[in-house]
């Protein structure tokens, strides 16, 4: 499923399709080809993670779906429409803290809906539900300054979910968190996702996290990056705490690790492969 002609033929209208997209940056110091010929679909109700060496254009890919960047080649289509700018049926969660520090938790969660022009009663009703869903009940009137990093990311997730996106775009949302918080909030995300079943495009460099959360993991190559392999994660859902210990989990993790290692070595140069 990595070549565009077949992708196009199987693509349904409701799907998110990458049609042979590429991205070239002109940095002034020279032209950098960040992404080359990426094709693929995010199936309905599936959790797709993208992993790859750092600087391989994972975030660029996500920004293109979110409409923040325009591909210099090919198109991204959502629901049959070419993405030309930020859409109201996508929502993003970033790695950095993106909460608005002067707003309460509830007002932060309601922010996306507020911008969309949703009525006050409706957006607070939804915001309350999402705040509860991400486990922040009792913190509605707190301000981000009073929350931990993990809690702020929950606020960002709730804000994105409240918009009821067709695709939820997550750019290393747990990348700035410590390991414990990260695993805990990962389980939380899965619990929430089991309820909402949005389509998710999840960028990470944590292979374990990718295996644990996803239905599919796309492994990107070094620059100019392509999807090197799509690995289907056939672990049963729901995935309880012991999932990491399953032998199938280890196999998938090893397989992905082997793929990424080759690409990382290309990025880091000769000698890195030995490490």
């Amino acid at each position, binding site marked *: 499923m990595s070549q565009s002609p077949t992708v196009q033929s199987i693509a349904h209208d409701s799907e998110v399709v990458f049609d042979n997209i590429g991205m070239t940056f002109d940095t002034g110091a020279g032209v950098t080809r960040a992404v080359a010929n990426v094709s693929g679909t995010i199936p309905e109700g599936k959790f797709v993670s993208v992993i790859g060496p750092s600087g391989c254009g994972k975030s660029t890919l996500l920004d293109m779906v979110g409409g*923040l960047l325009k591909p210099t080649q090919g198109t991204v289509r959502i629901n049959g429409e070419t993405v030309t700018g930020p859409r109201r049926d996508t929502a993003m969660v970033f790695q950095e803290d*993106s909460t*608005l520090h*002067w707003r309460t938790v509830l*007002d932060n969660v309601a922010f996306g809906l507020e911008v969309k022009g949703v009525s006050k009663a409706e957006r607070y009703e939804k915001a309350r539900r999402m705040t509860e869903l991400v486990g922040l009940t009792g913190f509605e009137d707190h301000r981000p*300054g009073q929350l931990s990093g993990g809690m702020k990311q929950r606020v960002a997730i709730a804000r994105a979910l409240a918009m009821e996106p067709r695709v939820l775009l997550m750019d290393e949302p747990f990348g700035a968190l410590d390991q414990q918080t990260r695993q805990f909030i990962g389980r939380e995300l899965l619990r929430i996702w089991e309820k909402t079943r949005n389509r998710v495009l999840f960028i990470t460099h944590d292979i374990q996290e990718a295996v644990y959360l996803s239905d599919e993991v796309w492994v990107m190559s070094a620059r100019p990056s392509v999807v090197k392999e799509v690995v289907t994660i056939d672990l049963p859902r729901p995935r309880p705490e012991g999932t990491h210990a399953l032998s199938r989990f280890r196999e998938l993790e090893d397989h992905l690790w082997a793929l990424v290692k080759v690409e990382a070595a290309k990025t880091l140069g000769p000698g890195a492969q030995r490490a």
Partner: protein
Amino acid sequence: MTVAEKTRRVRSTQRNPPLPRATAVRWVILAGLIIALELTTRTGLINPTLVVPPSEILARLVSIIPTEQFGLDAARTLTTIVIAFGIGLVLGVPLGVFLWRIPAAGRILEPFIVTGYAMPTLLFYPVLLAAMGLNAGPIILIAASMSLIPIALTTMVALNAIKPILHKLANSVSASPAQYYLKVLFPAATPLIFPGVKLGFIYAVIGTVAMEFILAAQGIGFRAGLYYRELNTSDMWAYIAVVIILSVLVNSGLTWLEKRIRRDML
């Protein structure tokens, strides 16, 4: 200490009411200074032709404040300050936004603006008086230009200091330009813009009173200057006291507003 912890500390000190003891000590210091001034002027340690005892200033204030002349002077000074500050705000904030939006313009114009900041603008007062006549116009012009500069500069700096992620967020939810400015940019920048606005107000007050003192037909500064030249020390001090009280009131008003704005914007 992490950033979050720091913010929490700052916040908690902000949220807590000021220590009642600190306030009490402050009042004691103030009362002590007034008593000391009273004693030194009464006993002649300070020449009473230079500084009059506070009790006498108070007595003069009581008789001056109800007069029509005081009302006219105060009204003139206050309207001049408000108009000058209003111009500073209405022009300064957009100028700051412009300097931020067009970084090239910012780089080109910044030296001019900083020079304008450092320059004693009041030297242009006589020229403006000659050109515009003895009315509030020249004072407003100078006080407004003094007020505008810190407002524009802090607005630019504050907008530059906004985390890029907030721009990305606003973009990702397809915020309209109005939403972008009013729901994200200005609330995020306010804590940094506000000190500049406060400074702008203070400059408007200084500019107005100083120009009035030099040459004017009306106003609190004019009256203080007039009594100074007439060697009427006690009335001069009464008007100086009015300026001091006005500054204290305005400053505490702005500080109160600043705290409120920092806490809540929308």
